């Protein structure tokens, strides 16, 4: 399967013009499969953590969104225990004018702004709503435990 010009260009730009706090490196043997790291945003309970994720560009990308999943465990109401992410631009609000870079930035922004009203991990969202401070503390502990490089 040949790689589209778009994927080649996106990959080049990700390498040449990297976004601070975000990296995405394709596998040598599968250029549609990327190892991703996202730094926890400052002022959030994820600050100081480096979160690993995997990103895959499906065959009809960019008509359909990239598939992305956290590999590092993270305590967040919109990310479940399998690392799946609840984010509109990864699903119904995807547009081919978006790209890997913008998607990763959106995910980083999601870490900075958890949305317990649209939960994927119900237990976490519950905890978040009942006692936000305690939930944030748990998120901080998880970051310490799982996401320290």
């Amino acid at each position, binding site marked *: *399967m*040949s790689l*589209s*010009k*778009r994927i080649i*260009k*996106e990959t080049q730009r990700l390498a040449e013009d990297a976004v601070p706090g975000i990296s995405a490196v394709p596998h040598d043997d599968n250029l549609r499969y990327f190892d991703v790291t996202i730094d926890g945003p400052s002022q959030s309970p994820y600050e100081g953590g480096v979160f690993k994720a995997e990103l895959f560009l*499906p*065959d*009809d990308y*960019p*008509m*359909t969104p990239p598939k992305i999943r956290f590999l590092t465990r993270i305590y967040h109401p919109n990310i479940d225990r399998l690392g799946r992410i609840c984010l509109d631009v990864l699903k119904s609000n995807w*547009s*081919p*004018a978006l790209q890997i870079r913008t998607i990763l930035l959106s995910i980083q922004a999601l870490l900075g702004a958890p949305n317990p009203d649209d939960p994927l991990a119900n237990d976490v969202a519950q905890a978040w709503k009942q006692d936000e401070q305690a939930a944030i503390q748990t998120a901080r502990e998880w970051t310490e435990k799982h996401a320290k490089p």
Partner: protein
Amino acid sequence: MVDDEPSIRFASAAHRQPRLLVRLLQCPQCSKPFNAPVHLPCGDTVCRACLPSARPRTHVSYPNTPDRLQSIVCPLPACGAEHAAAECCLDVTMNKLMELIELEMSKYRLPIGDTPTRLIEKLAQEDSTKVGEKEMEPELGHERVLHGGRLLATFTMAQMGELRYNSEVEYSSVQSSNLQLDEQQYEYESLDIAFLVQLQEAAGEVTNCLVCYNMMLDPTTTACGHTFCRRCLTRVMDHSNICPLCRRDLHVPASLQNKPSNRRLSSLLDLLCPEILADRLAALKTEEQPGNETLDTPLFVCTLALPTMPTFLHVFEPRYRLMMRRCMDGNKRFGMVMYNRTGAPQGNLGPTHFLEYGTMLEIVNHELLRDGRSFVEARGVGRFKIQDHGMLDGYIVGRVEKVEDVSLSEEQDAEQGETSGSHEYATRFLAANPDIPLPFGVALDSMPTQELLDFCMRFVNDMRRASAPWLSQKIVQVYGEPPANDPALFPYWFACVLPINEEEKYRLLQTTRVRERLKIVKTWIERIQNQRR
């Protein structure tokens, strides 16, 4: 002007066709370089200020969004149609391009020294003698001495408002203070070319399609003013009907069939970047082909289709919309294969999610619905076996090998062998066991091919007399009368109308002998008859 060699096309656009290039940047209405260009539904472009104001539309009630109930009469004489105000939007790409071009022009104007050219505006016929105006002296064109080579000088003249859209320009040399005339000629040409390179770079920056990241090919502009390759926009419309950039509802037929391209942008890119576009077209040809060029058959994984028989499809999945479009642009053929429901290994292919034998279909009727779905009527033209497969833009493509019946002589040999062999066996069997019916396989083998067909046809006729619902008039209308005289095709017809599961019918696709197929059909009939007893 015809360019013989691609290498001189570059220079010719800059030096020999400055008028052509500048005209593409001029508003056909006010003749000045575009200022806030608006893309019109008819495909052309005018300045926003040159657009007449919107007026309420009469006799229109659908769709009745407020901006569609206002209309703008197209100011261009070639069109003159009433455009919905909602569809006359700032052409974002063209606007950016104009900004960049003007910036380049002004940067360029500074360092050029004394490089004069005389430009004489040659008015077009209709401009010099305007109908309906008072009898006047025929108007004369403007005349200027301007610097910086022909291209910049021509653009400058347009900026000054002294070059009408339809006018031509006559250039002549003017002695400059520091150069000989022949040196001057050379100097100007290099000025033009250097300037054109700048323009090309400017164009390259803003005319990349945001879907494919290539230079726009057949640029097509949405009602919201965003431009994409026609192909890219069409593919986006397979998935949703909103603009990828601003998410506005686009209300276009998904095929974009009747939507004009952005003519200005298209001609500009043709003139400025012919090489890039040629490369792009060449690349596209390979891109749309499967990566491996032998995987040349698109495969639709859906249902059972049979040779010579019609197949009706409702195409709604984005990937298959794309596949159908490509088929319609190509040889109108695609392979139909069934799902592998049991997950059984498929020969050399392993446990694929589809079965390895299929039917090649040719589209006979393709009815595209407004929302991009389509109804397809296709007819089976042959059978195949998949040798290898891959993916292309979400659908399966394969390298297939034709499956054909053996030669007639081989067919006859088989009939001879089977019937005579089992006839002998049957004689001996009946002599020994006069009261026991022949084993089914022996009875089947002993029947001549014609008798097999006659048996099947008798069944069909009996069932029709008994008004079997699967042989109703409607069904016969769709699939035709049974091919009563063609034992090779009869089984396909029969399989089409008979309500049994598709996996059973699939066996027909693997056969290479007419007898084999008829024997399969006969076993179905016997089973049905036994059930009815």
